[in-house]
């Protein structure tokens, strides 16, 4: 199953179709389609080195769909809005540059929000999206999203969100004696918690 369809809790009408690719050769072409406003290519394309975890990308999707429902998206459509929703600040162009595809992108996420057109049945829509994306991306689709974490470039992500390395280690002095501070998983969890907060507060 190269297509992963995720139903966000509380947004059951809009399944999120996610594809993860590695060895991508035509990122520049895909980016051009977005820039040209080619409607066929209305996807959220993300450079997966900028994505920390599944929660990270889902938080952006949730906010984008929710903002769409409240009629307050600031970019062209819900898919570009999701890229903007990853940003810690209000600079739209910058968010596309940081999280979107560049000529150098080798691993990427392609995401499509389903259920936007009520006339298309959801299962037909999923099939159509799958066919189109597999034909459009020149790369190797992965069977599962488990590896999202592996593509993350922590240093780059820290820089964009202005996080300090190992912020976990100064956590509540006395308690840390027993807490495993050198643990990579734990640092990622701390990063994720802060990043989701920064994303939620964007525009406040």
């Amino acid at each position, binding site marked *: 199953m190269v297509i992963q369809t995720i*139903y*966000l809790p509380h947004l059951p009408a809009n399944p999120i179709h996610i594809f993860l690719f590695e060895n991508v050769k035509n990122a520049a072409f895909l980016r051009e389609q977005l820039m040209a406003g080619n409607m066929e290519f209305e996807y959220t394309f993300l450079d997966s080195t900028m994505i920390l975890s599944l929660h990270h990308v889902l938080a952006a999707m*949730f906010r984008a769909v929710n903002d769409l429902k409240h009629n307050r998206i600031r970019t062209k459509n819900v898919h570009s809005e999701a890229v903007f929703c990853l940003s810690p600040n209000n600079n739209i162009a910058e968010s596309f540059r940081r999280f979107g595809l560049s000529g150098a992108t080798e691993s990427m996420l392609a995401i499509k929000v389903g259920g936007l057109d009520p006339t298309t049945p959801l299962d037909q829509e999923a099939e159509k999206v799958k066919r189109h994306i597999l034909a459009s991306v020149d790369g190797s689709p992965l069977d599962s999203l488990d590896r999202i974490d592996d593509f993350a470039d922590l240093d780059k992500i820290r820089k964009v969100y202005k996080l300090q390395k190992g912020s*976990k280690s100064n956590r*509540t002095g006395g308690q840390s004696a027993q807490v495993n501070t050198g643990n990579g998983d734990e640092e990622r969890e701390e990063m994720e918690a802060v990043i989701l907060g920064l994303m939620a507060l964007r525009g406040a």
Partner: protein
Amino acid sequence: MTLTTAAVTTAHTLPPPFTSPTSPPLDLRVQGAESLLYKTTLLTPSLPCALKYRPPKAYRHATLDRRLTKARLLAEARVLVRCRRDGVTVPGVLGADWETGWIALEWVEGRTVREVLDGVYHVREHRDAQSAEEKEGKEGIEGIEKQLLGLMRKVGVAVGKLHSVGVCHGDLTTSNLMLRPRKKKRTTHPGHDAAEAAEAAEADIAMEALRDAQAQEPEPEQELDGDVVLIDFGLANQTVQDEDKAVDLYVLERAFGSTHPQAEHLFQEVLNAYGENYKAGQTVLRKLDQVRMRGRKKSMLG
């Protein structure tokens, strides 16, 4: 605002997207004066979250109401994100909508320090009433006391850390301190390709066996083990004044004194840990003496 458990008589309507009948349930846990707290999930069905909703108040002018809701919600969210970034143990912010008035926070497992103390002292009274033979295992009252001191220490460290990053809680009670059990080892495994997946499956079986073994042998100290997490920052502010910090400690001291008179002597350990772990804490502790003399309402005197 102190959140208190209350019988729910009125059904509140949540704003979208929390209105879908086919979505995960929203379980109302706490009803406060300003907000309702629901347990639900967000982002994935396996990520529990605390949804705090501030319903509009009909008696306020609509424009003013929206402004107040927005300001308070954002103040809380900003303090939480800042604390989390600076290493204070608080729940993370998963999402927010200041126009409709909700904020979604990481769900904190475990019990409040108040419940922990209630449990300990209830058991003790119960035990005193019964014969001395009823003692559970080797752990006597002294053992529990020692563990409680450890808990007090963690509370002092956590509050010291909070104050050291320049944040005051504003409503520091034993109900707003959670004792979260330490997380078990992650059970997820990266099953990359077929061969690795098979390996992982084997490892998984081994893990399973290990977990079973651990489950059969509960550690006696597990009860009071864990991390102290500060919750409910609805009244928090970012301040540099020692006065506000001293009032935080004073409020906590009073909370201990009134709900757990038996635990009052333990409070000194909170202050000890606070002073040892927070460099500027000594001046706050001196200030605390002044606050004790007159109560927390500075302006009401004189």
